């Protein structure tokens, strides 16, 4: 041990470290070892490991993100398919509903048209009948005065005297017509108003 101490003290004595047992640590090397490792550790801990950890976590995130995106895309595709099917079914229902409605509406229109045509026809028939009636009436009235005139004319001719007196002649005509009405059931309320346009 004395030799060790003296070498440690002087440091100039030749040969000790060259022949020393190899398991005696050399102080200089020990210091170099610790300092060099400390420097390496600082560089690795401050710069190298953070960078590597960052890229590892980024990669994990990227892979997980990719999987998540794929999953999301699948979910979206499924939702779109479901929605498409629902829309298709809805469209089919709508189409059949419209067809049904059209059929019903068509039938309704036919019925309505038929009714309208019937009404029109009835109206036309009624109007025609009314007109016929009116014309009949008119003709009857015209005929009555005409017949009166003719008859008066004829009578005056036959009798040979001019029945100039209007009042008398109209009385005679009325009487004559009243007799006629007994024979024919015709409404003769206005028959007593022959105007005697001839006189």
């Amino acid at each position, binding site marked *: 041990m004395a030799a060790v101490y003296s*070498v*440690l003290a*002087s*440091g*100039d*004595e*030749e040969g000790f*470290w*060259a*022949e*020393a*047992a*190899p*398991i*005696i*640590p*050399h*102080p*200089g*090397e*020990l*210091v*170099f*070892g*610790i300092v*060099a*490792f400390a*420097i*390496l*550790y600082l*560089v*690795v*801990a401050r*710069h*190298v*490991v953070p*960078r*590597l*950890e*960052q*890229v*590892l976590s*980024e*990669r994990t995130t*990227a892979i997980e993100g990719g999987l998540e995106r794929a999953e999301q895309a699948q979910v979206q595709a499924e939702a779109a398919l479901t929605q498409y099917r629902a829309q298709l079914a809805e469209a089919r229902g709508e189409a059949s509903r419209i067809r049904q409605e059209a059929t019903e509406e068509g039938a309704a229109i036919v019925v309505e048209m038929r009714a309208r045509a019937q009404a029109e026809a009835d109206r036309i028939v009624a109007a025609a009948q009314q007109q016929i009636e009116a014309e009949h009436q008119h003709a009857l009235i015209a005929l009555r005065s005409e017949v009166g005139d003719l008859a008066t004319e004829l009578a005056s001719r036959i009798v040979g005297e001019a029945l100039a007196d209007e009042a008398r002649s109209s009385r005679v005509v009325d009487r004559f017509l009243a007799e006629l009405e007994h024979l024919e059931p015709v409404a003769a309320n206005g028959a007593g108003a022959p105007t005697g346009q001839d006189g």
Partner: protein
Amino acid sequence: MRAQSAAGSDGFVAPDVSDFWQPLFGTDGPFAVTRASVVLVLSVVGICWLLLAATRKLSLVPGRTQLVTESVYGLVRNSVARDVIGSKDFLRFVPLLFSMFILILVNNLFGVVPPIQFPTMSRVAMPAALTLVVFVLYHYLGIRKRGVVGYFKSLMPPGIGIGLGLLIYPLELITYFFTRPVTLALRLFGNMFAGHLLLLLFITGGEYLVFEAGGAGMMVAGGVSWFMAFVMTVFEILVEFLQAYIFTLLAALYLAGAVADEH
């Protein structure tokens, strides 16, 4: 060195301990700057430069450099740190273990890389320095977690009676404070020292046999010796990698023991 200088005078002198003592600057005393120190500093500069360059531009899809860096990093991070320490708090030890692994690996490989050809860890002070870091750290972590008394209590294996405990406890103390650090340092040192000494022996021995011993048989023996040197070099590369891995793995184990919840 000595083998060559001595060979001229009187036969072959086998390489020995003194071949590993190579002070380069200053004195050859206790604070001499030795070849091991210079190689270590060079390795640290080289490793720092390589790692910083390789991690400058990292991408999600790695290139070749990044792939190699990530594989080495992944080996330490996942196969050593995470598997041994557990996924809860292994990340804070990853920088330590990674720098330890890469430093030992590179310095071990320097043992066979031509311009350097000196395994730094064959000087016991180098593994001792790394071991000192591990030793101090795992005791510090254990004491910080359990307190001084709690830590020394936790060294006692659970489920043992007092009688047996009195017998076991000193052994546990010796394990934690002596066996672990000493074996950790000496295992690495011994492998590198012995391996390199063996290479030296085969190479200088072959040289002596071929050039100085004289005779055809000796020359053939020298050739065989050189061939053995080549085989041992290949084997040495395997050992160098393995020792770096084992040192890191054991360091992780000791640290894991200190931070584990149960003994």
